[in-house]
């Protein structure tokens, strides 16, 4: 085991110990310990209805990420190819989307789409989209001019330059955007479900709070952490490693 791995695992143990200690000194309705949470998780997995709620949250997160990512890319490219739209897209649309509170969107979405998954997804996407827009825009602004000229010397086909030169130059930005959106999406989804949903993990948390059932809340948090960790470990990290490979001297 390398020193790095050793340190990493040691840290994990230390963290668990600290948690247990903290739980020891607080009542269960404030902070349950790791063991109670693990037991709760096991019970959770055995309950189909709860799994269904987990599925609902996953669906909301995934749909919103895909939707806002695709829309954000498309929107960011518009002013790149048609500079006329710059003010409209960034100064007006982007700035407004970027700052209008998520709960505001939830209200408007409820008006426009009714009370269902679509409006939850809409509200989350509205929050996520500006992040995609801002990140991709900075990517597009920082394209290597020399390479762009190289591309131009070989072809005037915009599609080809986009696919072979611009997109690869943007990959790090796209990737960072995806990672960012993934983090924000969870937070927003939970909040949206907590305050306005009738399905999903946020809704479960809401119910658990009414019952002073802190264990369930921690179990849900635990599941989210496990899920995000897996995504990080098996999806984002390998891609990151590939980007790093050709940047090294």
């Amino acid at each position, binding site marked *: 085991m390398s020193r790095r791995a050793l340190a990493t695992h040691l840290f994990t143990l230390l963290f668990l110990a600290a948690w247990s200690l903290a739980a020891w000194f607080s009542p269960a309705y404030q902070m349950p310990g790791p063991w109670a949470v693990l037991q709760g998780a096991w019970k959770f997995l055995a309950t189909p209805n709860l799994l269904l709620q987990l599925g609902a949250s996953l669906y909301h997160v995934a749909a919103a990420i895909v939707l806002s990512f695709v829309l954000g890319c498309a929107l960011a490219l518009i002013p790149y190819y048609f500079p006329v739209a710059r003010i409209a897209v960034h100064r007006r649309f982007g700035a407004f989307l970027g700052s209008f509170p998520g709960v505001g969107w939830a209200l408007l979405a409820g008006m426009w789409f009714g009370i269902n998954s679509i409006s939850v997804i809409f509200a989350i996407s509205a929050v996520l989209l500006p992040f995609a827009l801002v990140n991709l825009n900075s990517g597009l602004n920082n394209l290597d001019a020399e390479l762009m000229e190289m591309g131009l010397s070989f072809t005037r086909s915009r599609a*080809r330059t986009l696919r072979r030169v611009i997109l690869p130059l943007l990959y790090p930005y796209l990737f960072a955007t995806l990672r960012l959106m993934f983090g924000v999406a969870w937070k927003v989804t939970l909040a949206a479900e907590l305050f306005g949903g009738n399905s999903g993990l946020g809704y479960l948390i809401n119910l658990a709070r009414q019952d002073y059932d802190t264990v369930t809340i921690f179990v849900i948090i635990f599941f989210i952490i496990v899920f995000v960790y897996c995504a990080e470990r098996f999806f984002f990290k390998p891609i990151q490693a590939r980007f790093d*490979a050709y940047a090294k001297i």
Partner: protein
Amino acid sequence: MLELRDVMVELGGQQIYDHLSFQVSRGEFVCLLGPSGCGKSTSLRVMGGLLPIAGGSVRIMDQSPADAWSKLAYVFQSPRLVSWRNALENVVLGMELRFGAGSAASRRDKAMELLSLVGLAADTHKYPSMLSGGERQRVAIARALAVDPEIIFMDEPFSALDPSTRRKMRTEIEQIWRHTGKTIVFVTHDVDEALQLADRIILLGRKPSSVQENLMLKASRPRDPGAAELAAHRARLLDTYASDEAVAET
């Protein structure tokens, strides 16, 4: 075939040319010489339509540069390889950009062939950050040759090569040119290189630049660098450089 007439270029408020005019005929090998910063690279960019001009006209095979792009290829002064592809894939990239979708295998073969032509058969898997300066330059040359253009613009393509590799590359380029009848515009600082390769040498002066010399070289190929005619030309070119210098320093 290729014509600049009274071209005017302004960059950052500075006039690079006020009235630059010259022509290149079909199948000609033209060498462009001139002091550093006089606008040689700029003139190549103008001919390929990569830089808008403030005045005058540029025609390529009776088309505007914006229409004639598919007949051209560049070897830029800095290699401009993309960091996320290795040497081989960088060469393939040029073909992908120019021709769109197509057989990957045959392109890799072609790229392989050109990379061994430039002496990099053993380094095809290396990413640009692992290549030496001269190796990067040679990948860029292979990339341009791979799209088989009618006109090639080369901007100091051999500047980072050692004499022996350089000699070999010169011979290769000369052969390609003789066998295919391509038109080549070649920027170099090496007067001997120009004398060996060129049908015609165009020497630019200081900014705002204009053509100082337009030398036709009639010596038969392969040329002997020691030949009397070439020696005379060399003396003349170096002379012009020097006088140019003198002007600049007064």
